[in-house]
């Protein structure tokens, strides 16, 4: 039972954050949510974000990372090795997952502070939309824009690379799903960074610093071995779960059905502690990350002066 304590703790945190956010969002409402206002902010945010050069560049990068050009040569020659897909996905996880946060972190980190700095936040909030409605529209707009890029980047690559069999698409769809979940966590973190930053340049720097710390820390394998030996597997798993990139990568390893050869040390620790439940529990852990980061983002924004 002890192995589930960590999970119960995570779920409890998520429930507390989710309920308090829902309570605060609903408190004092005398009329229905201004759905058209939220839609206006959402669509505007989406269009603005999708036009950003940074976002377009990442679409191309994800495509190039996912398409695996050498495999294309082999495919054209009809010489693809039998395990090429697993190997391809494993490579993709190592290379692409640490890069995914580089898309939402800068885009999200400047989003609120830029509006505040330029005064447009004042203009938006002078209209009959609440801070909560603005936050939802802004967060979902960024989430959809960055998710579009991930799906188009990976999806286009999948269409090019994996045309040898439709069954291969399951793994690709799973990768896109988990990449989207990691993207959501990063949007949540980026919005918190944006709320606490006084200037756009600071926010951009902080966003990149968050990526650097997580990307460096995400090379957890040696650290996990050390913590596992000294403090046990649960402590090692806690360490893994504190890093959303590693957690999302492990989730993809479990979810995409990769074999033992593709497992990382961090993913093996999860497997050891949660055994048969490792897949749903890791999935839940990423969901907890999403709920907690968005809840913190909302609660902070609600209590801040908007201008």
């Amino acid at each position, binding site marked *: 039972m002890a192995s589930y304590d960590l999970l119960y703790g995570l779920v409890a945190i998520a429930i507390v954050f989710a309920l308090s956010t829902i309570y605060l969002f609903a408190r004092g409402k005398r009329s229905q949510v201004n759905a058209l206002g939220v839609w206006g902010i959402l669509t505007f945010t989406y269009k603005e974000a999708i036009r950003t050069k940074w976002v377009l560049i990442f679409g191309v990068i994800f495509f190039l990372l996912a398409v695996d050009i050498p495999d294309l040569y082999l495919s054209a020659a009809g010489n693809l090795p039998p395990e090429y897909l697993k190997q391809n996905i494993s490579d993709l996880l190592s290379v692409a997952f640490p890069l995914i946060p580089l898309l939402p972190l800068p885009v999200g980190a400047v989003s609120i502070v830029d509006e505040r700095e330029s005064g447009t936040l004042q203009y938006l909030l002078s209209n*009959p939309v609440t801070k909560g409605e603005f936050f939802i529209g802004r967060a979902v707009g960024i989430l959809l824009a960055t998710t579009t890029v991930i799906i188009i980047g990976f999806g286009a690559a999948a269409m090019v690379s994996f045309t040898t069999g439709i069954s291969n698409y399951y793994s690709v769809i799973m990768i896109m799903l988990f990449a989207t979940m990691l993207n959501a966590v990063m949007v949540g973190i980026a919005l918190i960074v944006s709320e606490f930053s006084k200037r756009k340049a600071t926010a951009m720097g902080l966003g990149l610093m968050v990526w650097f710390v997580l990307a460096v820390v995400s090379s957890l394998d040696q650290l996990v071995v050390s913590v596992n030996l000294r403090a046990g597997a649960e402590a090692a798993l806690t360490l893994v779960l504190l890093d959303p990139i590693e957690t999302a990568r492990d989730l993809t390893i479990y979810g995409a059905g990769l074999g033992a050869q593709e497992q990382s040390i961090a993913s093996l620790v999860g497997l050891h502690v949660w055994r048969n439940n490792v897949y749903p529990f890791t999935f839940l852990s990423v969901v907890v990350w999403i709920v907690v980061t968005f809840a913190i983002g909302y609660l902070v924004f609600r209590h801040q002066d908007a201008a």
Partner: protein
Amino acid sequence: MQQLATQQNEVPVVSIQNVEKRYGKFTALSKMSLDIQPGAHILILGPNGAGKTTLIKSIMGILNFRGRILIDGIDVNKDPRGAKKVIGYVPQNYAFYEALTIYDHAVLTTRLKNLGREQIEEKLRLVNLWDARTRRVRACSDGMKQRLGIALALIGNPKLLLLDEPTSNVDLRGQLEFQKILRSLLKQGKTMITTSHLTGLGELATEVIVLDRGKIVTRGPPDELMSRLSVNDTIFLRVKEADEPGITKLASDLGAFDFESDGDWLRATVPSKIKLGVVKGLMNGPYPIADIIIERSQIESEYVKLLQSGAVGMRDGGN
């Protein structure tokens, strides 16, 4: 008595009750209370840091504050959306999205206000922007941005207009156009709160409120406040250097004072009430005048000057 009873029974459009706003140790608004009746045009004056913009932002619910603000009977903190339906806001620095067109902004605003697009044409035509609706904001002049701000604020026909330094970056032509629009809005019975240093706006106000360090230090009708001031204008005369002594003597006899010359222009101060007489006397005089510029005094700046000199006390403070 009847008028007083009517005022007491009427729900104020804005009711500010013990509002306090602090930024760390700095008190931007100090236990402020104020009621604004329908149809009033309140001009808020005060030096930088007096709390003018903080007050406007608090009324809109953009800032968190202690105390209570009711807009048309709706508590800003409890029902911010409901309160903001009553408000149209014209921002200080025309903060719009540079890449969007004028029409895009109008569409975005109608969505934010949960309305259809029917009013867009009417409001853009009102401020002469309909023909320029496809122009991106980055290509608009400050005057156009200012008019766009008014058009967007008017979408939804709000009862209350908040204008935060609406003409701070606008040229004289823009200011005059703005005054014209304000006059027509006042005729429609809109309640307005303006913070401004706009020439002539003091004359459009029904009441002037002077803030200093987050407190109301005085308030009253503009005429009454004007009578407490000796408001002076400045005239600039382009004359021949040889004629300056004679013109100075003539102008002085007509009531001008405080002369200064840079060899090209002669500057003099004249009381606002007699300036036309002084100009007429100079034009009819024996000295040729190549050009005249009148720099009009502003009730706002005069009052702020007086405030800073410490001459105004807590005479009519609304706290």
